[in-house]
């Protein structure tokens, strides 16, 4: 049944392209909502064994090359499919008023969503790679046509970085395919690759994926891309696309080359920790609200990589939980900055926002941003806390020093989030001269219903997982324990 998320989304994409422009957004909403319904139903459907990566659909595709159309599902895939569906629904809700070429907009948007579902469910390496590369071009057009701020540069940079990552992944996949003679992920995860091969093939494959996950120092596409993208594009980028890289690293790179992973994992941890601290420090100095959030994405994804580097079931589970959590929180932050604030004030500059004291004009937006910031800072009760604490506990045994440094990084995260929050919504009027301007602002357009629904959905998700992380962890941890790369 879960396979229908892919088919429905592709079908929805083409329908959105062909139907009259007024219907496009409804088609997109119906498509993404049914995707969400399917994943949620699958989530509470107990008969399917989520501990192992079990086949859902399997059919021969190109027998001459041993390619199969093969989809499978376990707890990790399902969690990521769920965050994809959540982000997709809210991204459609937050682009409800797209009037410029709406058919194409929802076409490209749904292609990203469909490709991401495909990546999370593929059990054949070629199929996986096909979906993985399929996501690249829609992002380019989303940013190029509907973006803002330096969009041509941001779009091209993001696309070329993604494609560079894709090329590295391609080499890694080819090496595994040629050496093992198979493209089946389950078979490849059993195949004994020679240590010499793993020593060089693992870093190539891992780095390819990690570029998309925003690993330092190849993360620079992320902030510029996020800033240039339209709101729904940023939400998809932060919520889904960065997860594709992290998921690929976990499912493909680490699982088929476990010995290579054991050799290189210390370096991954170093880069991850550096990324967390560096991106947080950079975010502290940004003036554009979207840049702050863009760098916070890089910082949060650093946690994911750190969790993966631990090579323990706990760390990996924490990583997956963090992918979910950041998907929801990142999307929420971008939604507030790009959809609620910018169209109403026409600025994202923190110094200009500060005297506006937006909390009076937009109480709902302020509330949403407070929730998202609290979750982003890692305050207990939200999903971010549950995920980060799991990762840090998992990392304690392997990299105690890294945990200390990351602890400092968490402080920086809290600092820049607080700064952004205060400046954007709760600024103090510094001089009396600016007070009239501040008084004039409460004429901003009210928050619309789709915006409220989208924000409500994401806030509910981060609350639910924050208060009861077992909901996800019960499904993630058994799947993580079945992985091959676990260190003794």
């Amino acid at each position, binding site marked *: 049944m879960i396979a229908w998320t892919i088919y429905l989304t592709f079908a929805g994409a083409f329908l959105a392209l062909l139907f009259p422009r007024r219907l496009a957004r409804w088609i997109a909403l119906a498509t993404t909502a049914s995707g969400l319904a399917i994943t949620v139903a699958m989530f509470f459907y107990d008969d399917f064994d989520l501990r192992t990566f079990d086949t859902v659909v399997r059919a021969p*595709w*190109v*027998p*001459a*090359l041993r390619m199969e159309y093969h989809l499978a599902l376990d707890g990790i895939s399902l969690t990521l499919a769920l965050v994809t569906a959540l982000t997709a629904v809210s991204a459609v809700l937050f682009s409800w008023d797209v009037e410029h070429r709406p058919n194409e907009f929802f076409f490209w948007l749904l292609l990203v969503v469909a490709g991401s579902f495909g990546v999370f469910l593929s059990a054949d390496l*070629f199929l996986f*790679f*096909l*979906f993985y*590369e*399929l996501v*690249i*071009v829609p992002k*380019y*057009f989303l940013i*190029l*046509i509907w973006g803002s701020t330096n969009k*041509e540069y941001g779009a*091209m940079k993001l*696309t*070329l970085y993604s*494609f*560079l990552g894709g*090329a590295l992944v*391609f*080499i890694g996949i*080819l*090496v595994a*395919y*040629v050496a093992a003679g198979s493209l089946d992920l389950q078979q490849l995860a059993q195949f004994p690759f020679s240590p010499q091969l793993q020593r060089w093939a693992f870093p190539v494959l891992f780095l390819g994926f990690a570029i998309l996950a925003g690993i330092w120092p190849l993360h620079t596409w992320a902030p510029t891309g996020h800033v240039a993208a339209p709101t729904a594009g940023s939400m998809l980028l932060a919520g889904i696309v960065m997860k594709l890289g992290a998921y690929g690293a976990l499912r493909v790179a680490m699982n088929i080359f476990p010995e290579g992973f054991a050799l290189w994992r210390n370096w991954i941890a170093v880069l991850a920790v550096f990324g967390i601290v560096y991106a947080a420090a950079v975010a502290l100095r940004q003036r554009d609200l979207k840049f702050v959030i863009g760098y916070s994405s890089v910082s949060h994804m650093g946690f994911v990589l750190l969790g993966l580097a631990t090579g323990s079931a706990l760390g990996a589970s924490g990583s997956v939980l963090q992918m979910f959590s950041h998907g929801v929180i990142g999307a929420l932050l971008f939604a507030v900055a790009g959809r609620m604030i910018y169209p109403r004030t026409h600025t994202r500059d923190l110094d200009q926002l500060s005297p506006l004291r937006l909390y009076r004009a937009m109480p709902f937006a302020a509330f949403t941003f407070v929730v998202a910031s609290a979750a982003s800072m890692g305050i207990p009760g939200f999903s971010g806390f549950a995920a980060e604490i799991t990762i840090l506990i998992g990392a304690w045994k392997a990299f105690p020093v890294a945990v200390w440094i990351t602890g400092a990084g968490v402080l920086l995260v809290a600092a820049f989030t607080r700064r952004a929050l205060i400046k954007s919504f709760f600024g103090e009027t510094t001089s009396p001269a600016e007070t009239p301007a501040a008084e004039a602002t409460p004429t901003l357009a009210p928050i619309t219903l789709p915006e409220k629904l989208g924000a409500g959905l994401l806030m509910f998700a981060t609350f639910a997982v924050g208060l009861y992380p077992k909901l996800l962890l019960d499904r993630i941890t058994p799947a993580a324990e079945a992985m091959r790369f676990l260190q003794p």
Partner: protein
Amino acid sequence: MKYLELLRLAFPEAHVAGTAMLILALGLTRQNRNAGATIFPDRRRREGNPSATNICSIVAALGLTFAIISVLRLPPTATFSGGMLVITPFTSLFKIICLVLALFTVILARTGKAARNQPEYLAIILLATVGLMLLVGSEELLMIFIGLELTGLSLYVLTAFDKTDQRSAEAGLKYFLFGSTASAFTLFGLSLIYGMTGTTMLPAIAEKVSAAPLSPLLFAGIVMTLVGFAFKVAAAPFHLWAADTYQGAPVASAAFIASGSKVASFVVLGKLVLVGLAPWHGNAGWHALIIGWMPVLAAISALSILVGNFVALVQKNVRRLLAYSAVAHAGYTLLGLLGGGPEGFTATLFYSTVYAFTLLGAFGIISLVRQETGGDDLEDFAGLRTRSPLLAACMTIFMLSLAGLPPLAGFFGKFFLFSAAMRAGENQGLLWLVALALFGSLVSLYYYLIVLKIVLLEHPATSAGIMRVNLLQRISVGLLALLVLFLGLMPEPLVARISASLR
């Protein structure tokens, strides 16, 4: 008796050649009647005679269609005169592919500027097609050379066909000079191979020398032969004609050079190196370099990928851009031959076929845009989306397929090629070339996206209205785009057919 046998086996070729003659005759009678008594060409004549043009196009299309049917009716396997003319499922398949490409070219020729003297133009396209069919259907060096020359000479004329355009004449001359020099090299190389082995049959050559070491003289012969083919497929450093020819020639000629001629050349090159010269393959692996044709092709391939992609980056004319991208694609396609074996050959053939269909479609769009705006520079494509959404969508499909993005045929083709190359040799010897090709793809993505940016984002320079695209053109371009999409999603039919026919 023997001539009857020849006529039976070469019926498709004879059919196409006969159609060419018929069209010439038709054109002659029609034109004379319309020209009346005036000696000086009046305006009506310069514009071409629509009814004659239409009739000739229809006759050409019918002739090609019947030729496809007669290829299907050939016996599954037959040999004439020890390999002069060979019929196998493989040759039949590629004859059909060449005929289909010619058919699309004939449709394309209806929009070109070469409407003047259209009958002669169509007849020469058909003659070039005969050359392609001879090339595909022979395993004998002399016949191969005759096929090469027949194709080559027809294409030189097609390139220079637009008498009113200086660029066309320049392109024709360049193509001719480079082409005849390359032919001379090939002929010399073939004669050396013949001199060393005493036979012109490809399988016999391989048998004769499977034990003999590779002598310097023979190596010289091999390299010279490869030069001619590198010229045909526009691989660097023998690509210098490509940019001017693609840009200057009438659009249909350029499309045919880029598609049909290229496919047939790869078929023959593959047969030559994988059948005839198989014993001297050598090794192009970075840690086990052994002299033979493989290192030569590897060097050509690497150079093509680098030169093609980097020069294409700065082009402002779409046809010129496609010419340099063609150089790069020739480089990728050679990877399959370096992979060797039936699988590598299948990959090369699949990719060149897909590439041919893609380029035909792209040139179809270019000719329509040219008809509308009078040029084919990048800015002439601005706002194509608003002028013709269908053409913009098709252009998106063609460009993304060339860049190798899923779910289009170019993506699967590249995966197939690169995996074949990786499989060759032990210890990933060709990794260096695969990595280079991937790097080249990364560079190429940039210029394909620039084209698409202009098509989908920019506004038309002038207040151009909706483009008038007639039904036939719409169908042919749309069909090619669907084919590219279909072969990306379901490559199995073509792959299985090629690899079965190679067995």
